[in-house]
């Protein structure tokens, strides 16, 4: 019995180790992901994003409780930023969720954003998938709502909840940054603070003017997560959104779209890697690069030259297939 079987049998350590494989981007990732292909869509994905301090973790903590009260199981991926200076990170979201530490129906995993290789979104997405494959009914993905990459992660979610709080400039920033575009549900947390009514009114107006879907009106829910106010309503809205997605066939369509876009992403990344790799030792390619660098040729003409060079393309193809062979051997072993 291997680690994936163990995970399917409910072994928490095996599940944790599988998540480490994703976290560390080890070569076993493709193999692992192919093993859970059939099970990864069993559960439902909920994304929570919003600025630091908006109370996301507390909201997620109460959402876990809500889901558990319905006798359902939940996985959580809590993402915190990696320091660009040291590569380290402080993953503090567990503090808010420690009441569930001993609940076998809850599995919480903290994740750092790590490098910028584009591997971030994949590791996080795959972590969520494995959590669902392990039998969780829901998987919550919590991110710091800054930057395109994290918006991208939340986009994996079937329902995306954007968390705002009154009386800060963050909300306006969020609107400007386009974060509202990804919201299926907007939560105004800390709704006992002044400015709540105004913020809700502004949001309603904005949503009214920019309705994205005919089949879903984005609701605004006021919560006070620390007092457990509004949590039930939020969960009901998520369920409502889930039903609408199912009824309209949007859920299936969304998953299809996600699969293809991930596939394309992988293709793109690999081709890019092969090409980048070749600039180290392919003399012909290097010469073109040097000419571009010196300004002797414009980038458009240079690109035309590259794609007209059959030998260069052939060498790239060879590189690609040798990589495939190496990887095949590794996986077989």
């Amino acid at each position, binding site marked *: 019995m291997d680690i994936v079987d163990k995970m399917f049998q409910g072994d928490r350590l095996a599940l944790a180790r599988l998540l480490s494989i994703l976290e560390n981007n080890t070569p076993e990732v493709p193999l692992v992901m192919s093993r859970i292909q059939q099970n990864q869509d069993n559960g439902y994905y909920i994304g929570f994003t919003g600025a630091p*301090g908006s109370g996301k973790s507390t909201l997620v*903590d109460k959402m876990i409780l809500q889901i558990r009260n319905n006798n359902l199981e939940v996985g959580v991926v809590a993402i915190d930023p990696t320091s660009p200076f040291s590569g380290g990170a402080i993953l*503090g979201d567990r*503090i808010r*969720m*420690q*009441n569930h530490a001993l609940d076998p129906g809850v599995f919480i995993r903290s994740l750092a954003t790590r490098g910028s290789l584009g591997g971030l979104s994949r590791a996080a997405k795959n972590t969520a998938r494995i959590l669902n494959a392990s039998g969780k009914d829901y998987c919550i993905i919590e991110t710091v709502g800054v930057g395109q990459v994290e918006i991208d992660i939340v986009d994996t979610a079937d329902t995306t909840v954007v968390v705002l709080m009154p009386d800060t400039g963050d909300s306006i920033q969020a609107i400007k940054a386009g974060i509202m575009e990804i919201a299926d549900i907007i939560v105004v947390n800390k709704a006992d603070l002044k400015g709540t009514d105004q913020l809700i009114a502004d949001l309603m107006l904005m949503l009214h003017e920019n309705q994205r879907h005919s089949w879903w009106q984005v609701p605004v829910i006021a919560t006070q997560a*620390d007092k457990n106010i509004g949590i039930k309503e939020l969960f009901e809205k998520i369920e409502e959104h889930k039903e609408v997605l199912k009824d309209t066939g949007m859920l299936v369509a969304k998953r299809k779209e996600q699969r293809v876009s991930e596939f394309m992403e992988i293709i793109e990344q690999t081709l890019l890697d092969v090409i980048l790799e070749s600039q180290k030792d392919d003399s012909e390619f290097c010469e073109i690069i040097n000419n571009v660098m010196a300004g002797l040729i414009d980038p458009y003409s240079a690109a035309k030259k590259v794609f007209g060079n059959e030998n260069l393309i052939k060498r790239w193809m060879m590189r690609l297939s040798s990589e495939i062979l190496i990887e095949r051997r590794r996986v077989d072993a």
Partner: protein
Amino acid sequence: MLENKKKLDEIKSKKDNWEQELLTPALEKVGPKRQQGVVGIGHLEDPVKEIYTPLDLEEIDFDYLKDVGFPGEYPFVRGSEPTKDPGNPWINRVYAGSGTPEDSNKRFKFLLKEGAEEIVVAADLPTQIGYDADHSMSVGEVGTVGVSLSTLRDWEILFDGIPLNSMKRVGILGNTIGPIAFAFFIALGEKQGLSPDEYVVHLQNDALKEYGARNTQFIPIRPAVRLATDVVRYCAEKRMNWNAINACAAHYGGAGTTAAHAFAFAAAITYIDYIVDKGLHIDDFAYLFNIFTIGETTFTGVSVIRAVRKIWARMMKERYGAKDPRSMAIKMTAYTVAEASAQQPLNNIVRIALGTQTYALAGVDYIFNASYDEGLSIPTEEAARVCIRTQQILAKETEIPFVIDPFAGSYFVESLTAKLEKDILHYLEEIEEMGGAIDAIEGGYFQKKVVEQGMNRTIGYATGDKPHVGVNCHAVDQEPQIPLFTQDSGVAKKRLESIKKIKQERDNTKVTQCLNKVRQVAQTDENIVPAVLDAVRAYATLGEICDVWRDVFGTFEFTKSYSI
């Protein structure tokens, strides 16, 4: 005036000359100086100048009568009283307690024999957090960092043979259990045949400090503020001359001395506003306050304490309309821990003595100090005796007690006092903009400041930029071994038996009635103290009373642990 201006111009030109002709070449010889922005606990945060002159006083527009004045007079910079008794310049306190009440009673008697003037009872963590020794959360912690105290019987044992009025004062932290600790002292006095005006109790009772720094809280923050202020109101209404509450800077020392005092002022403002809201006038209760200061290095310590006295006096007069000088003259408490190290622990005797000397020079009213072995365990008798002797040596063998506020008028100290005052007020303004102490704590501001400065200090130690003698420089290969205190391993068992026994002996119907009364009062706005006092008299346990509070007010959720 013109004469003065002429004089200053002359000083300025001579100083410029001196800098050019003497200082600059001398500095070149000395080489680059060690970074002056020292980041120690309660140390200077900003660089200091080479020398200070009358020009620095001119810069702060120094006015003796306005900025300093006389001891016992507004703005009380030189102290709350006109003079001090050179024989007893301050109260020599000792923080003590561990194991069972019997163990601690023995230690108290030893300390009092050695000359301690006030015992500050150190309670163990379960007691501080409102758990009896028989609670599941108490396992492993009973009697470790302090004495385990559950019922009035324990207090009777703790002070057996020590009448409360035989000490100048007696104190306890009790920040989250303020009304209960307070009630224990009253009920114990009754048992000893004393009325509250025959002895003085010094309660720390600073609930907010727990949420901001020490983390012994167990109910939500707002009800905790109410309970703490109930004690102050009770004392005010009974005209008691106890110390009902401290605004503590001490535990925030890591944030820097000015930020720490701003936190203390913010907490004081929260308590005061709460009490004023209840209809009391500032002069009815301000005298019950005390500031637990921090600032152990000589010049910063002296300056910051002078600045704090001034800020308090002005705040009382201008913000709260106090008329009674007693409200404006704040008394100060200080605890010296210095940058004590676990390495070469005897060095700590020197460190702690120097810190204590700072407080003596600053005219602090109540002083206690850490023992040299504090970083390793509970003090041994020998180490505790050195604590007491340190203060006795300063009080009896030096000239410090004879002159009040000896640094007044120093170009350096006066300009530093002015600067620190400005810095404290700046931080305080920041906190008030956040909505005050509660919001600042809940927003993680206090903790963040302490951790930020702590980081700087840790990095300073690690790189050696901040020397720590015997630790990052002058370390030894073989650490000297000193004898350490060892705890009797049977403490928990003894405590369980004692609680079981008292629960059998007491009138349990009466206890239930009293606890119901506590519950009923907790649900209203009424003062909790009388109900708690009755419960304590009936031998209700601390844990039982706290359980009622948890029930009524809810439990503090550590999931809210403010930021990291």
